[in-house]
């Protein structure tokens, strides 16, 4: 399943409690539209960490990264492109 579909499914199941795809627009602000409440954001962070194997730094938990399916997809994709640690390339050469 693609990254945006996985995110969509998680939001629909865990915050909107439905499988009705029409209930969630990809650009809908989770907070503005009351989809995710303030403690829900932390659940969302745990979800992306576990599902995509990325580590979210506290200072990255911002509306620009997390507040819609679109933004979260962009953020996750960018994180997946990051080298896992600084020496990754050197290791690959070996």
């Amino acid at each position, binding site marked *: 399943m693609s990254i945006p579909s996985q995110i969509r499914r998680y939001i629909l199941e865990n915050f909107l409690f439905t499988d009705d795809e029409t209930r969630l627009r990809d650009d809908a602000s989770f907070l503005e539209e009351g989809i995710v409440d303030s403690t829900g954001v932390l659940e969302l962070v745990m979800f992306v960490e576990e599902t995509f194997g990325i580590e979210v730094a506290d*200072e990255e938990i911002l509306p620009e990264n997390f507040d819609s399916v679109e933004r979260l997809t962009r953020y996750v994709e960018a994180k997946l492109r990051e080298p896992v640690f600084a020496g990754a390339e050197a290791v690959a050469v070996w």
Partner: protein
Amino acid sequence: MMRLVHHFLEQSAERFPDKVALVCDGRRLTYAEIEEQANRLAHGLRARGLQRGDRVAVWLPNSAEAAVAIFGALKAEGIFVVLNATTPTGKVARILNNCTASALVLPARQSEDARFLQQAVPSLGTVILCGDAPSPAELPGLRWEDVLGAAPPTRPPCRTIDVDLACLIYTSGSTGDPKGVMSTHANVVFATGSIIQYLENTPEDIVINVLPLSFDYGLYQLLMVFRFGGTLVLERSFAYPAAVLRRIEEERVTGLPGVPTLYAMLLQMNLSPFDLSSLRYMTNTAATLPVEHIRRLRARFPWVRFYSMYGLTECKRVCYLPPEELDRRPGSVGIPIPGTEVWIEDESGRRLGPGEVGELVVRGSHVMQGYWNDPEETARRYRPGRYPAERLLYTGDLFYMDEDGFLYFVARKDDIIKTRGEKVAPREVEEVLYRLPGVVEVAVVGVPDEILGQAVKAFIVCGNGVRLTPQDVLRHCRAHLEDFAVPRSVEFRESLPKTPSGKIDRRALLTPSPEGPGEG
């Protein structure tokens, strides 16, 4: 003289016209600008028939428009009522009918809600819509810009005096029905003055408010800042703690009012990327902060004055712990706020001494007027005092005091749940659950939670052959309850434990069941 709540804005607009009063959504508004917009709104409301003492409902997220609407309603001789942006429309209708609101301000994207409320609330005359609308052609009301644009910027004449009501603040009661606490201008002027005194606020203070303006703790940040002429940084929520911390750094914020959930979130974070040196004080109220969290906050913010406080909407604030006492009495919520007194009584009305647990009773000019249109509930909480017309507030909370008169919260007398700093009446959630087909019996309790303080949990017994999933239950709850009142967990049971008199035994539900938890 500052006799009326809107004088806070008017006097600051005279003293500091060009000073930034409000930072919100990337906008910076000066006192003069807010004063002018509030004047325009007041004229607009009066021109459309608003009468002295009429209720003006503000159903907006934290925003500049919400601040303008609050002061505009007062300048129009009205009474403002702020409603939480996450309150479901059905409940908003009940509240608007309870206070027979004449005017409503809400976001234009909620046009459908506006249409529904125009049908459901007969008293509603004026509906004003803020912001962008999906289909501007057929708006079910007036546009905010049009109302303000057509009205003069001058201060309208105002006949209000300080015994008139300034606001109704709706709060959860144990019956589950929302109750509107009536505050006069004199109540608010007194309470804000007392709190500003012990927080030692000056015009140099920059306060960040992440709490909803529908909540008295959030609302009073706006009112107090405008009174002392400071700057308010208004945020939607604290859903993104890093964004809040960045704002504190950018705006050089000096005051952070928080609730235990916010502090629990901060304590889990790496704070090193942020420069928080501008913070002068932090406050906590709404629910008890664990002593361990206080200790850790002290260690991480050694330069900050930390105020542990306690209060309830019915009198705004009861007590505060002077920061210099924090290390000596970390579990205490302190002494009565300046100009007020409290004592502790047993069931027979006898005043108790140090170490004895009883109900906390409050006396002072901050004791509000009771609940709108609810004499029964009012008589239960507000009882006659020493002099005619004086009322005492019976808090319904159990306390004791130490030898020096410092207060310690023990427990609530009722079963209200405090989650994320918000009050949830189990009965309100239970009534919503009973409306779900197939549900036979329910009990809603608060279970301890590291972040939320208490988390709402629902125990449900289904009818024979009924298959409900936790998702079915939660979807139904989301449609009928505020977000914080939606249960965090659902447990299905074959039956619920009963007391000898046949009532559901909540205490037994809070201890783990012998047969182990069900699904969910």
